[in-house]
């Protein structure tokens, strides 16, 4: 059952990734990307890592996609279809993708994976303890630095979006 679901989700990811880059209507490409992101969160749920699955749904499915839709609508003439890519570019892109795929496959097949002997699902509380831990293996400093990063994002976005008015 889980194996079948895994293959269905993987097939969805592959198909919609290709559809997303090859679609010539920009909003449809965004929709296909959304399917890819939802399918990835499905894989997280499948391996019982529901916190990451929900983060994937919230931040990518709900947040980034809405952001992309709004940024797409900033574009002039979105009703026009994207131009067809010339064959030369297609070949280069295909070669680069094939190289990437090759390297990934090589890494996966040569890495000595060991089967986990004990299975334990990760609870949100475990993540919390790590995140607020200040001893060995604690992430309290990165947790604080995240807020600085988010602050930088806010300032950057405002400077970009309101750039003209700020300079005047």
């Amino acid at each position, binding site marked *: *059952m889980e194996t079948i679901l895994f293959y269905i989700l993987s097939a969805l990811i592959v198909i919609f990734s290709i559809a997303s880059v090859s679609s010539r209507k920009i909003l449809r490409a965004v929709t296909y990307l959304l399917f890819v992101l939802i399918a990835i969160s499905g894989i997280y749920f499948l391996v019982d890592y529901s916190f990451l699955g929900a983060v994937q749904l919230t931040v990518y499915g709900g*947040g980034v996609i809405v952001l992309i839709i709004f940024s797409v609508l900033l574009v002039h003439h979105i*009703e026009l279809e994207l131009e067809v890519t010339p064959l030369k570019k297609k070949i280069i892109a295909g070669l680069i993708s094939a190289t990437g795929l090759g390297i990934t496959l090589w890494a996966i097949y040569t890495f000595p994976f060991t089967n986990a002997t004990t299975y334990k699902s990760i609870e949100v509380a475990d993540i*919390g303890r790590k*995140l*607020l831990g200040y001893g060995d293996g604690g992430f309290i400093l990165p947790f*604080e630095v995240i807020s600085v990063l988010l602050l930088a994002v806010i300032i950057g*976005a*405002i400077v970009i979006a*309101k750039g003209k008015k700020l300079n005047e």
Partner: protein
Amino acid sequence: MGYEAILVLLLAGVFLIVLANFLSNLLSHKSDNPAKREPYECGIETIGPTWIQFKVGYYLFAILFLVFDVEVAFLIPWAVVYKEIGTVALVEIIIFLFILGLGLAYAWKKRALKWE
């Protein structure tokens, strides 16, 4: 039931929509004329394209939303373990929210929160 409930409800929803659309197509009375195929706006033919450029305000609010969305995602593990960790978690979150509050204050000062 475990996670397969998500799958079951997903399939149930798809089934509901497909069935209702099918029934609707089966039962409905159909008619056609050119005016019916026009967008429903004001009774006259629609002028100009719909898919135009929207203003940057939407983008700005979307990115602010994304920032706070990520913040919520990080606060959730914090909220779950708050009771058992105590003082460290309290100090931590006051600093965290203070820095984010600076961002909100900056946005406020630069009138990014004003819709114009």
